[in-house]
């Protein structure tokens, strides 16, 4: 018998097979940065429906919205950065095709994940007070501090409810087979909070390495996820494409531009889907390689 922790390696399809209709799924990364896009593409290929998606939104939200997978969306923004407005998200909002919308302030979003990660029903914060975020989310209430401030006033604060997740999907640069994982880019984003807010977390990564390899060329502080937080590990090279996965690769701006352009027109979108999203992950990566080969010869 092995004295090592469990081997949690899985395939993309095995991860998606564990998901169910109606689940609340948190998607890590930030806007168009280090998103678990290979896992998102696999959800697109599946029959899953009526999902609640919790995301610092980018093309993950755009793609799932366009495919009609989202029943409820919880977000603070949706953006592609270099393309400021996500066209598929915009279309979904303007056509009211997502039945339930929960737009939060960014700090509220973070605090909701923090509450869930600490198994608290809520955490107080100032953000949201006075804004329409509270008007449009009457389920989020305020709470009066039991302690007076220095002027003797009792502050009302937002009681941000825990954003509890059934599943978190995140993408990191490196992981071992047990679920310890490092980010190598500039920002951890909130992937550890997503993992701790969820009943189960699946981490996709650029490369699975030996545990010793995780810290051989990078400081230990970059170990964002420990294996207690992780259910499954998937090796998906280029799995964050077309978002950033610094330093392994930067955003594929050309491809993102083609994505955004296609989203604006039904015929162009059908062609984009056929070309890039109708096969498995290997087919996607090969279609992307073809796309760049064509761009080169232009």
């Amino acid at each position, binding site marked *: 018998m092995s004295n090592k922790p469990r081997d949690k390696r899985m395939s993309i399809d095995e991860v998606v097979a564990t998901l169910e209709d109606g689940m609340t799924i948190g998607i890590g990364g*930030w806007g168009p940065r280090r998103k678990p896009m290979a896992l998102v593409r696999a959800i697109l290929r599946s029959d899953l429906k009526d999902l609640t998606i919790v995301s610092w*939104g980018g093309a993950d939200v755009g793609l799932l919205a366009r495919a009609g997978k989202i029943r409820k969306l919880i*977000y*603070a*923004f*949706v*953006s592609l950065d270099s393309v*400021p*407005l996500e066209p598929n*998200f*915009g279309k979904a*909002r*303007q*056509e*009211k095709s997502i039945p339930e*919308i929960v*737009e*939060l*302030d*960014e*700090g*509220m979003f*973070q605090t909701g994940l923090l509450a869930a990660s600490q198994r608290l029903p809520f955490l107080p*914060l*100032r*953000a*949201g*007070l*006075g*804004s*329409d*975020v509270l*008007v*449009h989310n009457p389920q989020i209430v*305020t709470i009066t*501090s039991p302690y007076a*401030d220095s*002027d003797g*006033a009792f*502050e*009302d*604060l937002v009681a941000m409810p825990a954003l509890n997740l059934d599943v978190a999907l995140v993408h990191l640069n490196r992981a071992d087979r047990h679920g310890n994982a490092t980010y190598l880019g*500039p*920002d*951890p*984003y*909130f992937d550890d909070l997503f993992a701790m807010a969820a009943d189960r977390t699946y981490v996709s990564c650029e490369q699975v390495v030996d545990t010793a390899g995780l810290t051989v060329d990078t400081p230990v502080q970059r170990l964002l996820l420990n294996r207690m937080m992780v259910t499954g590990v998937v090796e998906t090279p280029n799995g964050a494409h077309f978002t950033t996965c610094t330093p392994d690769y930067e955003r594929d701006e050309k491809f993102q531009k083609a994505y955004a352009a296609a989203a604006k027109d039904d015929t162009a979108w059908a062609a984009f889907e056929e070309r890039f999203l109708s096969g498995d992950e290997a087919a996607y990566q090969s279609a992307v390689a073809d796309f760049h080969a064509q761009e080169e010869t232009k």
Partner: protein
Amino acid sequence: MSDATRAEVCAAAIADAFKDDGEIFGSPMGMLPMLGVRLAKLTSNPDLVLSDGESLFLGGVPPLFAKADVVEGWIPFRRVFEVVAYGKRHVMMGATQVDRHGNQNISAIGDFAQPKRQLLGSRGAPGNTVNNRTSYWVPKHSDRVFVEEVDIVSGVGPKRAREAGVGAAKFNDIHRIVTNLAVFDVLGADDTVRLLSVHPGVTVDDVVAATGFELQIEGDVPETRTPTAEELLIIREVLDPKNLRDREVPPVEAVAS
């Protein structure tokens, strides 16, 4: 007589919004705010803390969009939210709409349930405006931006903050609104937008005509100051040698022709 362009006047006005901030995080959203904040750091407020807009605090003051610089700290997004709650920050955000009471909208245009045009979402505007000093930058002043009432309140003006209670009001601090035409604050009667100065070449009537609500205007409105020779040198030779600023605020002659 200064030969400063409109964009350069705006950059100096933005810099002035940050001059009395002391040692806090100057957080510009967009190009002219980035130029103005860096100008402030090189002139009136060397204690300002700047970032690369991604995850690094910069030790120096690099030109717009330059990468290389001394790093003096780490500011990933999670720590931005910590600084927001800590309060030592002055953010200058964009605004798709601003209303008479200094409320701001970047979320969507139209009805929230089914907007005519979906924008970014509320982002950090609700939290910024009840936690730390907040200013707005509007590169194209018009009555489509300056409306009687915003469609969706993302950024909270002082009146709404006061009505929401002491928790919302105690750190609400809407400092300046700078546009391509003029400079404002929100210290008018009943917490309304007040005209502080008009840029050289702009009349008060121009500003009134381009604003969709009644502005508070007190006596003779002064002209926005023109940048000093030192500021012009810094803008033109150091911070923005490629003249990107004119893309956001075109020279006035070019607009007229």
